[in-house]
């Protein structure tokens, strides 16, 4: 098909989808496929003999609670009348943490998000955007597909092309035009669907606009290309775990569980479909009042409250299932208890200065003026997927990979340091006990990765097997058990000798004879030299500081330099940035695991390396 035909096809598709939402369910009789509607379970309580079954929900709200809510409503109504008074603002915090009465959420949320003002200030804008979307939107197909999958178990959204489904479609299409940098990103349907439970179409549009571009929430950065805010918040989340729940963090690392797997929806849609809806609303109440630090604190709170249970789960799928599915069905604590815990978490994090990863950098905020129409290019009109990654995308992907591998690396550090304490004579050999064996398929893949990895840092982590706890590793354990029976007179011996320590400056890599120096300016008085003595022996002299504490985070100090296009074995020098701790890392892909490692004349691994990443201290 030529471009013209493809454009025509896209226009036709947009037209068709829009028309259906404009006509609505009542005017689409006989035109909605049965598969588009979930089975209406409310009518499925009659058994085959005709008996109707009573399937009442468990009565969770005690009668006195209902009374409390009625009392609260009265107070809130009064407060609404004097919203801007200092007294109200003072009371607001306490009352919101107690929960906004459901009947008043529509009003309070609107106030907190300043919806009325936005709507009045941009009168006519929503309609304008919707009209533009009808003519130009390139997101219609994706939005349509997601509207069909959003809250289908809710009575508002259950029927295909119901009124609320139509509103949801319109709000998302209009917003995608309003904020062309974001357009539509999966996840936004969840936000808009919650807002639409309480607001009309246009209010929901402005509430969504506030959530994305008001700096208090700044969700814009979550949804733009590369998801920079997600990366930033995940890193912060990791910092919090490392500080407050190191054991849990290690537990996650052990199973190769990156936070992105369990927490994406926490950050993306503010806990929708990850905690029970009643609790989700309570968190939203507070989020709308206090902003993004609530998300950070709630993420921490969830793990804190369930740490004990999670520590008992010894498998990645069990952990993820618990956090994603079990906690959505039944959180295990009453909402009030969770909210008190959340409040305490917020204080705790604030004391530790970890309550927020900082204000959004400007690139996470809208760069273009909102509401100004920009005609999409033909490629996006047709809906072709881009063939190549943009620089931003490459960086974002590198970040995801780095996150996974950092966790793997930290786990290895842990194992090394643990085995140090167990056997001091063979502290180095301890690492070799590491029981991960390597998947044949897995390790070759890692090599392939190196060539596509764009950042120099990454190649350090990824050129060998680096998905340490990554579950594919178990695959061949039975095979490699057999392998290790060989004796150790390997063809590739490697001896690594340590120079005595007089270290008082940061050791750096000296220029290798075969390559230009990665850091020409960084020659230190105590250089590391890698000297080839024969084909199979390399001596590496490193300034060594025996007082160095056990490693924390390791950073490569020089960018990747290759001697050979087909290099298989990698040596790396790492420091923790303060020069107190030096590391040599050896990485060998599993196919080449023929290398006995000898340290100062002592054989470290008896036969050959049984894992392909090895750290020397």
């Amino acid at each position: 098909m030529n471009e013209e035909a493809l454009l025509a096809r896209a226009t036709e598709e947009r037209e068709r989808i829009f028309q259906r939402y404009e006509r609505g369910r009542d005017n689409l009789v006989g035109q909605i496929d049965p598969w588009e509607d979930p089975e209406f379970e409310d009518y499925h309580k009659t058994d085959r003999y005709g008996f109707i079954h009573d399937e009442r929900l468990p009565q969770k709200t005690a009668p006195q609670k209902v009374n409390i809510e009625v009392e609260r409503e009265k107070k809130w109504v009064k407060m609404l009348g004097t919203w801007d008074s200092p007294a109200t603002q003072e009371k607001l915090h306490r009352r919101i943490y107690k929960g906004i009465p459901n009947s008043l959420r529509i009003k309070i949320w609107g106030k907190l998000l300043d919806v009325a003002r936005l709507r009045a200030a941009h009168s006519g804008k929503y309609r304008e955007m919707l009209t533009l979307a009808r003519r130009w939107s390139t997101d219609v197909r994706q939005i349509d597909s997601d509207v069909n999958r959003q809250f289908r178990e809710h009575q508002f959204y259950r029927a295909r092309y119901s009124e609320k489904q139509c509103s949801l479609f319109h709000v998302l299409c209009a917003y995608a035009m309003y904020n062309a940098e974001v357009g539509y990103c999966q996840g936004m349907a969840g936000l808009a669907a919650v807002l639409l439970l309480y607001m009309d179409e246009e209010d929901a549009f402005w509430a969504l606009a506030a959530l994305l571009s008001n700096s208090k929430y700044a969700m814009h950065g979550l949804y733009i290309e590369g998801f920079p805010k997600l990366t930033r918040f995940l890193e912060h989340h990791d910092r919090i775990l490392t500080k407050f729940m190191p054991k849990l963090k290690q537990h996650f690392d052990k199973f190769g569980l990156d936070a992105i797997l369990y927490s994406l929806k926490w950050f993306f849609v503010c806990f929708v479909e990850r905690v029970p809806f009643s609790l989700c609303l309570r968190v939203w109440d507070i989020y709308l009042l206090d902003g993004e630090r609530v998300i950070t604190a709630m993420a921490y709170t969830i793990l804190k409250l369930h740490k004990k249970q999670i520590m008992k789960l010894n498998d990645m799928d069990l952990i993820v299932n618990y956090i994603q599915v079990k906690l959505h069905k039944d959180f295990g604590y009453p909402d009030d208890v969770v909210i008190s815990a959340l409040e305490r978490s917020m204080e705790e994090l604030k004391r530790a200065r970890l309550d927020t990863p900082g204000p959004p950098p400007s690139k996470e905020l809208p760069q273009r003026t909102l509401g100004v129409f920009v005609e999409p290019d033909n490629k996006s009109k047709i809906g072709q997927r881009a063939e190549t990654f943009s620089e931003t995308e490459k960086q974002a992907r590198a970040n995801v990979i780095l996150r996974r591998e950092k966790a793997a690396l930290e786990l290895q550090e842990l194992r090394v340091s643990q085995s140090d304490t167990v056997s001091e004579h063979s502290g180095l050999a301890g690492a070799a006990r590491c029981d991960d064996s390597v998947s044949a398929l897995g390790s070759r893949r890692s090599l392939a990765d190196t060539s596509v990895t764009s950042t120099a840092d990454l190649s350090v982590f990824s050129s060998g097997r680096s998905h340490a706890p990554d579950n594919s590793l178990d695959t061949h354990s039975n095979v490699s058990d057999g392998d290790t029976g060989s004796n150790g007179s390997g063809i590739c011996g490697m001896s690594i000798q340590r120079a005595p320590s007089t270290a008082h400056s940061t050791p750096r890599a000296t220029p290798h004879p075969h390559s230009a120096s990665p850091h020409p300016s960084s020659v230190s008085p105590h250089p590391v030299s890698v000297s080839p003595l024969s084909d199979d022996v390399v001596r590496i002299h490193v300034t060594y500081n025996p007082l160095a504490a056990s490693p924390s985070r390791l950073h490569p100090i020089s960018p990747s330099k290759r001697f050979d296009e087909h290099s298989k074995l990698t040596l790396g020098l790492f420091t923790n940035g303060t020069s107190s701790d030096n590391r040599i890392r050896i990485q060998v892909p599993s196919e080449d695991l023929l290398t006995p490692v000898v340290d100062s004349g002592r054989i470290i691994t008896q036969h050959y390396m049984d894992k392909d990443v090895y750290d020397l201290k």
Partner: protein
Amino acid sequence: MAKTYDYLFKLLLIGDSGVGKTSILFRFSEDAFNISFISTIGIDFKIRTIDLDGKKVKLQIWDTAGQERFRTITTAYYRGSMGIMLVYDVTNEKSFENIKNWIRNIEENASADVEKMILGNKCDLDSKRQVSKERGEQLAIEYQIKFVETSAKDSLNVETAFFTLARDIKAKMEKKQEASNPQARSGGHQLKANEQQRKPASWLSRCSLL
């Protein structure tokens, strides 16, 4: 912890948004269809352990968001996958055209010898079909990838697809182990000899300093 399986294979489902990846996975892992009304944001996975020629094979199947923007997350998970299912929707021409693009994604991000399979899903919706079975087959021949039409809704060919992919991975893996390690139990000397022949270059020439 005692292992309850002999092998663990990591599989990946990719394809345009809405083609039914999650439904296929749900059909396979839970033998049910009703959850098709959830869109995958980012990445998710399910587990099923199958019996393959007397071996217990645990399949860890990764499900991915189809929206283009999420490829920065999802392609990071191509690494480590042993098998990839490329899914398109037979009622959606564009999702079929995009298969080529997805294959390119695999070439750039996954291991070179990853097992692949193309699935044309929703084949129960015959009245809405835009992509004929022949075109699917043609594409599969062009890329030398196995192909099958599936229906997650009617539970058609879903089991077959996963079992075929798993069997291919197992076969490839065993073949490879045999080739690289013909006498595993007799020790490492044999192995070294092979290795030396294959890679005569000196050790250092294969070494790099980071």
